[in-house]
Structure formats: C-alpha cells, structure tokens
C-alpha cells in the first residue's frame, strides 16, 4: 500500500468520524491519550484497547483476514519539565508484552510533538498442541509522535523503530538463544481521538508495521529473513 493511500484512509476516517462529534469546547489535555500534549505533574491518563492484525500468509499459512487480537492497557504519567512516563501491557493470553519508557512532549498552539523510547519485556508460554515452549525477549522502541487538535477531535501520527535486544526460547529441555536481527523494522500509526459521549473519548487507529519478527506470533517460529507488512487496526477507550 502506498503512503498516499494510507494518508487518504486517515483523511477519510477523520472526515467521517468527525461528523459525530459535538460542537462543544473539549479538554483534550485531560481526555486524549495518543495526542502528544503536555502533562501536568502527577497527571495520569490510561486507556484500554483491542487491536487485530492481518498476519503474513507466508508465516501463518492461512488466508483468514483478521487474526491475533491483542488487548492492551496503557498509562501515561506526567513528570516535571514536560516529561511523561508511559507504561503498557499487551496480551493475547498466550503472550504478554510489558513496556515502559520516558517521553518528552512539546505543545505549540494546536500542535503537539513527542519524542521518546520504550523498552519492553515480552514472554509467551504454550503447553498445548504439542508445544512445551516458553519464549522471552527484550525489545526497544525509539519513537516520535506529532498531533493536531481540530475543534472536536485530534489526529496523531506515531512512528517507531523496533529493535530486538535479546531473545531466548525453551522447548522441553532444549534451551537456545535465538538469533533475531537486531533491527527488526519500523511502524507508523495514525490515531483519531474524539468523544464518544460527553468527555469520554475513544480512539480509532490504523498502524502499518514493517517487521521481520512479529512477537504475537512467536509460536510460529518463523525463520523468514524478510520484512513483512502487517497492518493493525485498533480501537481504544480512554479511561
């Protein structure tokens, strides 16, 4: 999919969803999560989300459209000097991904910018279907975000690089340090945040990932040394 097509999709979503928004003054700084606004010291915003992905056919060997639902809980916590700490947990039950990292946010009029990095520990365990397997790993996600406040909604873009720091798997009594490439790929996502009712916001997002190793499907033990485009759709409630 071309960059032009992705931008077109984002525009379509903004245009369509905005028709539901209310003509009232909204406090985005207290109710949006992906928009990189500045945080007051000790301010907390959390979100609960669900995402699905279209997995690479080479790896999963099926043409089912939507797979790998992931539930996520994320929390941002305001620190002094425009710094924000962000943590999150993603899971599909078999796999858990726990991330934490600092960000520095900067707001200019209706725009917001953010730069930061997250480090994540992830692990998976499967003891059914002929598996006696555990897989653990560490990943690093340097990231940047930019967003714009419209009257009734915000639109934000977030891009990140993905690095594999270390990984290890255990199958029965066999214990091997896997050898994934250090640079795993990159992602870019577009997120629309708008009120669902009153000041309760929801987020609709599309993320394009270009990765060699997609951790939620670690159990496939894919050995393909090529980058796959894996699109994700997310739906998130701001708590």
């Amino acid at each position, binding site marked *: 999919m071309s960059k032009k097509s992705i931008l077109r*999709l984002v525009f379509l979503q903004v245009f369509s969803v905005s028709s539901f928004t209310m003509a009232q003054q909204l406090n985005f700084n207290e109710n949006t999560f992906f928009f990189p606004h500045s945080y007051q010291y000790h301010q907390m915003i959390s979100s609960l989300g669900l995402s699905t992905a279209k997995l690479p056919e080479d790896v999963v060997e099926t043409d089912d459209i939507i797979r790998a639902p992931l539930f996520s809980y994320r929390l941002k916590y305001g620190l002094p000097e425009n710094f924000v700490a962000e943590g999150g947990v993603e899971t599909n039950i078999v796999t858990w991904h726990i991330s934490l990292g600092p960000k520095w946010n900067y707001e200019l009029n209706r725009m917001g910018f953010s730069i930061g990095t997250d480090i994540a520990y992830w692990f998976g365990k499967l003891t059914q279907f*002929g598996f006696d*397997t555990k897989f653990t790993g560490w990943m690093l996600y340097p990231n940047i975000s930019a967003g714009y406040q419209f009257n009734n909604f915000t639109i934000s873009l977030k891009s990140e690089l993905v690095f594999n720091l270390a990984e290890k798997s255990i*199958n*029965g009594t*066999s214990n091997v340090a896997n050898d994934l490439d250090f640079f795993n790929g990159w992602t870019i996502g577009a997120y629309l945040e708008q009120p669902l009712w009153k000041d309760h916001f929801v987020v609709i997002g599309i993320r394009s990932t270009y990765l060699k190793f997609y951790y939620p499907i670690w159990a496939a033990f894919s050995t393909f040394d090529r980058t796959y485009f894996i*699109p994700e759709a997310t739906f998130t409630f701001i708590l």
Partner: protein
Amino acid sequence: MKTIIILCASLLLIYSCNNEVDITNPVVDPSNFLSETTPLPLDSKKVMEGVYNVTEGNNLLGDQVVVKWTRDRLSIFSGKNGGYIILDGGSLDSVLFFLGYWRYATNTETGVVNFYISSGEGGKKILNGDTTATDIVFTGVYGNGKESANKTIKLQYKRPFSQAVRNGNFYILAHRGGGRNSDYLGVSENSIEMINIAERFGSTGIEIDARLSKDGVPFIYHDSDINLRLTQKSLIWGNIEDFTWPQIRSLITLRNGEKIPKLLEVLSFVLHKTELRAVWLDTKDVDVLPAEIELQKAIMDTAMTMGRDLKIAVGIPADDILQAFLNYPGHENILSLCELSIDNVRQANSEIWAPRWTQGTQNSEVQQMHTEGRMAFVWTLDEPSYIEEFINESEFDGILSNYPTIVSYYHYIK
C-alpha cells in the same frame, strides 16, 4: 452508518495488501557449456565429498561448507543464512567445471556461481577416483541477483565426513516434498516437480500430504480447501475433497503451474526416478487411509523386488486417524509413523515415533523407542540454532524440515 461503512472499507483496503515476494532465479549455463563436458563417474563424485574451508569469498557462505553429491547435482551447504549452492558439472580434459546458483534458504537472495577444479588442484585425482586426494580446491566466482559472476570464492578440502556420519542411517526429510510455497523455490509444494529437486537440498526422504477425491482417488495436497496460497485462480473453490479426480486434475493448477499429482504418480516417481529412502505420508483425512495403505503396500513390494531401500510410512497424526488405523485389518504389520504419544505408538505398533520438535530433544523417550526397535523422527524443525542443537544433542533418527539444506550442513559437519 456512514462512518462505519467508510471505516470498514478502509480496513478492507488496508487488509487486502499482500506481501508479494519478487525473486528472479539466475540463468545458469546460458551458453550450454556443460554439454561439451563429460559427466563425472560415481567414483569421482565420492572423492570430492567432505567438509571444506572457504579460503576466499566467505561473505557468501561463511568460513566452512559441506560438499555433497546428490542424485544429479553437486550441492554445497553452509551455516550462513541456510546458504547453499546447487551445481551441475562435468570434466573437460582433466579440469572439472561446475555451473549453478546459490541461494539463502531463509530469504530470497540468490545468484549465479561457477567453479572449476584444475588438474593440479585435485582434478586429475578426482577423475582417477583417488580416495587419498586431500588437496582439492574449488576456484570460482559468484554474483548477486541478476549480475554476472564477478566475486571470487575458493574452497579448500578440509576433511572427509566423520565415521559416524558415513556409517549412520540419519534421515533428512523435506517438508511437503521439498519445501513450502513460501520458500519460493520456483516449484510448488507437494508436486512431482518439487520432489524431483528435493535431493539437491540434501533430502534423503520427503513428507507429503495425502487426501482423497470424491470418487476415491488419493492425491497430494496440503490444505482442505482450494485457495490462492496453493493454487492459481480456478473455476472451482471450496473443500477440495468434494470434487472428483477429473475435476481436480483438469480445473486446478498449482501455484507454479504444475498439476496436482495422484499419490500413485508420486510414489512411482519416488521409486523409479529418485534415490530417496523414505516417504512420510501425512494422512490429512481419515477417508484416505485405506487407499493410502494399499498404495504403500504395492509400491513397497515393488521396491523390495527391485532391491531398493525405500520406506513408505503411513502417518498417524490425530486420534481419529489412529482409531481408523487400529480398525484396519493387519494394521500391526503396516509400516506407520505415529505423531501421538508413545503409548499410541505401541498400540499401533508404529515403526516410527514422530513428536513435534517443540517438546524438546526427549532423549529418554527416544531411547525407549530405540530399545523397542523403533525409530524416532522430529517435525517440523526450521530454526537453525535448534537444528544444530537437535543434530548434536538429540538421538532422533531423522529431522523433518523446510530447510533440509540446513539440516544437511549440521549433519555432515558432525
């Protein structure tokens, strides 16, 4: 409503994107040079086999490779990216020439490669079948992608295969006849064309998937449905076993243009046209079991009269197939391979136990099988680091893999 429609349309659009892989196989021997050479005798081929140091051009395959003749090609296996070289060759005077291509198994990088062995660097001794030849040097050039061969590569004989390797009876089994469609080998999985090249990857056996057509003809095909992962667009779709053999044969074309083969055609091909030692029939549906057993018996009887070392094992991958197998008269004497528990193996009197690799090396269970006179294969192991681990630390008699080239490398350097 408008929002939902546009959102759904957007998601469908973005989800419809495919990860197309573009691979251009290099043109080998465009001037037909090898037709002017003399094919090498079997004795000469054996002299060349062994472990070699890469003394120049180790960017391509690392520092060490395995050189092994297969039925019709000289194959070179390495530990770098599952890299391998497939060569055709012959002699002219006392110089040996080899032309072919290299490929990384785990991605789609490939290119041409050419070698020669001069008369003084082993060529003469090889042609004389001199088994004491230890000074063999392959001198060659290779290219990346479509470029011509322009980078130097040199291989120096290091040692012969170990006694354990030469005297062993280890099975290197290729998944789906040689590899998956997603390995982009230029031929389709579960096709005769794939089986024809399986030995070049070091395979000594293959695994294939057996199904039964609506009119009772066993054929090989992996999935239950007709889909674009395995086939080109066709006029029929749905469950493939709902169609008759004439419909399957005439209306479906495999991904790379081949026709779906009958199981009989495949087994006959293996028997008469290859030197493969094992066929693992993965029973995909309980209905195919009786026909599979009949064909197995017929082909193995013929193999026996030919003095051919060929095992054809009926796969028992699931409980319903085990039950049907146990209900089959005389099942105790049928060569079978059971993927279930050790107790099920004993129940079916299977000659081979085949657990999934993700349960580990299971050495004590494998030893139990050996004590009972059975063999043990493990499937489907593709992760290079685990292949090395299983080759060196486990007691399995065979490994099923999509990368028989990687299994070959770690087996032959053992």
